[in-house]
């Protein structure tokens, strides 16, 4: 997030939520947004194919077609430019690339976007005016915006929108991705990515590499590594011989599960380190038992860059050990001695190599927390980035983005669009929540959400069993007839091993930059069984 969660409760005068079912996926942030809207007078715009809880209290709700985000946001910008609502001072002083972007935007009149998005032109106008005229407007998005073949474009679009109106660099403004998992932010910050060391220092940058070579005492590769989906594809071709998986469950979370299964089968040696024998662990040659969050010390970094302590409360079961201890042991046995007294000692090493974390210490966050960048011990941390429009790269760059259709289109055989997501009561691949007794008792199985009109046409009753199929496979589950989804769209969750929704999704259409699969759009059909 460029800004902080707390600002969504009071500072933001308008909140534009796109592709985030906030009250289910980030419930406490959802509470803050609702409080701002219902009690503090903030205006709310929601764009989502599903009528979410927030959509119900929105000033403008736009149920856009899955995959039409760019067209929708471009049309909002078209209105803002044509009605003279753009912030030209901000554009002149802090940005570049406006002209090229505006040229692409010129054709995206609301009337042009209406048939693409399915959103009435008048609603697009209303949303554009609200967003541009509120003074301080924030954009929140989640996987609903990113899990498309155009995910990167979608994100750049909303950045364009924020810059066009100068809604950046002040409290209550900004572009706020709501991260799905507790420590996604931290995993990225720590260099758990194939192209960067900690704090996004590029592996291809000679100076950065030299710094890490010196610190770690070994020569390092300057060639970008493979992203997760490419690893799976290469494994499929027999080019990956060893895979070491720490607490991930690609056999539930990755698209086209059969493809992943085959790929794992072709890897000579698979190590899985986890707290449960996950679906993925079943394919391992060696499984190493690890400690869960309650059994170790450390830090997590939340979606607003806030670094907070994780504290050991109980012993790990049996012989389970913390993930870092296990990896240090393997490293040492491979001839590279790695050992730390405790997690704090690791954090101290991180600080020396990670400029944005340099000022953070366990002592400083013992009674509180700090938001990075925090470069020195005196620095108070950074609640919002790009203060006064000063972007870290100098000028904020507009990107000219045209709309392209989703990779998968519906046809006669697969006339519906299936989109996937999460339930309030479960988390990701369900390894934890399916074993949390109350959560699993309350929501024991996946359901297929279908619009009443659609259900009637197909003879499907509420709670009746249906078979949902895509070009990749089919699953059987109960139908939930609800006007949460529009006719033409169906929805299910991916938490349940019995009905793994990613059996249905495609790994064919990846976002070219971020390599994100198109989870949110699969052509599908539904039958009563």
């Amino acid at each position, binding site marked *: 997030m460029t800004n902080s969660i707390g600002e969504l409760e009071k500072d933001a005068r308008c909140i534009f939520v796109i592709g985030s079912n906030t009250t289910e996926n980030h419930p406490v942030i959802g509470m803050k947004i609702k409080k701002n809207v219902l009690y503090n007078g903030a205006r709310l715009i929601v764009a989502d194919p599903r009528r979410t809880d927030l959509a119900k209290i929105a000033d403008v709700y736009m149920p856009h077609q899955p995959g039409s985000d760019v067209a929708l946001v471009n049309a909002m910008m078209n209105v803002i430019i044509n009605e003279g609502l753009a912030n030209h001072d901000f554009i002149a002083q802090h940005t570049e690339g406006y002209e090229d972007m505006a040229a692409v935007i010129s054709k995206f009149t609301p009337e042009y976007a209406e048939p693409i998005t399915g959103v009435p032109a008048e609603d697009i106008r209303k949303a554009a005016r609200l967003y541009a005229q509120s003074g301080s407007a924030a954009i929140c998005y989640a996987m609903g915006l990113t899990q498309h073949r155009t995910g990167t474009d979608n994100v750049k679009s909303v950045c364009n929108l924020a810059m066009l109106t100068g809604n950046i660099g002040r409290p209550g403004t900004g572009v706020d991705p709501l991260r799905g998992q507790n420590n996604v932010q931290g995993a990225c910050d720590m260099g758990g*990515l194939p192209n960067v060391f900690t704090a996004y220092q590029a592996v291809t940058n000679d100076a950065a590499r030299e710094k890490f070579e010196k610190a770690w005492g070994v020569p390092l590769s300057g060639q970008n590594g493979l992203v997760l989906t490419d*690893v799976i594809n290469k494994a499929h071709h027999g080019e990956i011989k060893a895979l070491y998986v720490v607490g991930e469950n690609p056999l539930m979370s990755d698209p086209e599960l059969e493809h992943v299964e085959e790929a794992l089968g072709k890897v000579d040696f698979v190590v899985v380190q986890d707290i449960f024998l996950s679906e993925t662990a079943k394919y391992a*040659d060696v499984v190493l038992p690890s400690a869960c969050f309650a059994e170790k010390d450390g830090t997590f970094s939340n979606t607003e860059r806030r670094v907070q302590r994780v504290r050991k409360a109980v012993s790990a079961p049996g012989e389970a050990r913390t993930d870092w201890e296990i990896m240090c042991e393997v490293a040492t046995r491979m001839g590279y001695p790695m050992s730390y007294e405790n997690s704090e000692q690791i954090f101290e090493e991180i600080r020396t190599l990670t400029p944005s974390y340099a000022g953070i210490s366990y002592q400083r966050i013992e009674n509180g927390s700090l938001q990075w960048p925090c470069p020195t011990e005196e620095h108070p941390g950074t609640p919002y980035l790009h203060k006064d429009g000063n972007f870290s790269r100098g000028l904020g760059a507009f990107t000219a983005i045209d709309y392209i259709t989703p990779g998968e289109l519906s046809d006669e055989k697969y006339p519906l669009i299936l989109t996937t997501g999460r339930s309030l009561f479960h988390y990701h691949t369900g390894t934890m929540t399916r074993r949390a007794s109350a959560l699993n008792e309350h929501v024991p199985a996946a359901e297929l959400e279908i619009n009443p009109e659609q259900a009637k046409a197909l003879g499907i009753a509420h709670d009746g069993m249906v078979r949902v199929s895509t070009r990749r496979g089919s699953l059987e589950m109960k139908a939930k007839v609800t006007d949460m989804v529009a006719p033409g769209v169906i929805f299910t969750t991916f938490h349940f091993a019995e009905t793994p929704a990613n059996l249905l999704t495609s790994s064919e259409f990846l976002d070219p930059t971020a390599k994100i699969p198109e989870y949110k759009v699969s052509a599908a059909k539904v039958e009563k069984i």
Partner: protein
Amino acid sequence: MISLTINGKEVQTPQGSTILEACQQAGIPIPTLCYDPDLRLAGSCRMCLVEIKGRPLYAASCVTPAENGIVVETESPGIVAARKVILELLSARHNFNCQVCEKNGNCKFQDYCYQYGIKESRYDYGEETNYPINDCNPFIERDYNKCIMCTRCVRACEEISIARAINVENRGHHAKIATAFDGNLADSPCVFCGQCIMVCPTGALTSKVSAGLGRAYEVDKVLTTCSYCGTGCTLELNVKNDCVVGVTSNRTVTGSPVNKGALCVKGRFGWDFINSPDRLTTPLIKENGQFRAAGWDEALDLVAKRLGEIKTEFGPDSMAVFTSARVTNEENYVAQKFTRAVLGTNNVDHCARL
């Protein structure tokens, strides 16, 4: 700053404070039931009554402004008598079974009854107020036979969770907290966040997941960060005999900077996977398609040997590590260091995108 006299002592307090706040700043305890610093004031229970010299009526200190020069008594005989009446009235409809109550030892109502020596009630409503214990969800038990009608749950639901699932129904002795149409929480807008449990001063609202596992005085509370979504709420793991038996909120700004004690259903009730019998407890090695338990040395040596062999034979880029958006920063750092410095490849990623 203004200055007033409380129990004979001169006390300074900022302009705009209530008498209750002035007392709290001065370290003078005042019993409260309906007051909650994060919620709209109700001023309804009257437990916090104080006597102000020269005023004919006792004042509820949580809603009465502190004024310059006033003289306040907080435990005068008249005040004590008034508080006893309030407690006796509440006792008349209270089902005391402290010996099995989850809240025993951490219950404001129990504490005040003890403090003011309420052994029996002079009041009898003549008719039983006997409410069935609502049970139709796996998260929250509602036993309104222990409710003191402070309405903190209603206000927390409305003001913190913005769910508006519950409200006050009926009036007088028959007043109770209920969902619309007095049904089950599961059929209301309730999102099972448990904020109502967090604020309830009695055992009327309790967690079913923690039921019977340990009471407040038996557990240690360890402040940590939720392991589910990226919001990063802080919570307290309640530990008894090296076992997590519950989750409670820390409601301070420093202890809980993101959420100030508010949690969602996963954070508050989704913790018992920690104790699941399915947890892995020993390394496993696959032999002939079957896993067998192994010691650490054997498993680690095997991993090191095989990775070493593959590195030599096929080169570093034939290997990859998936680190995790779930483990700590320190572990992610070690994972990428291991990948880069030991395996010698940049093939490290996690499921940020999935």
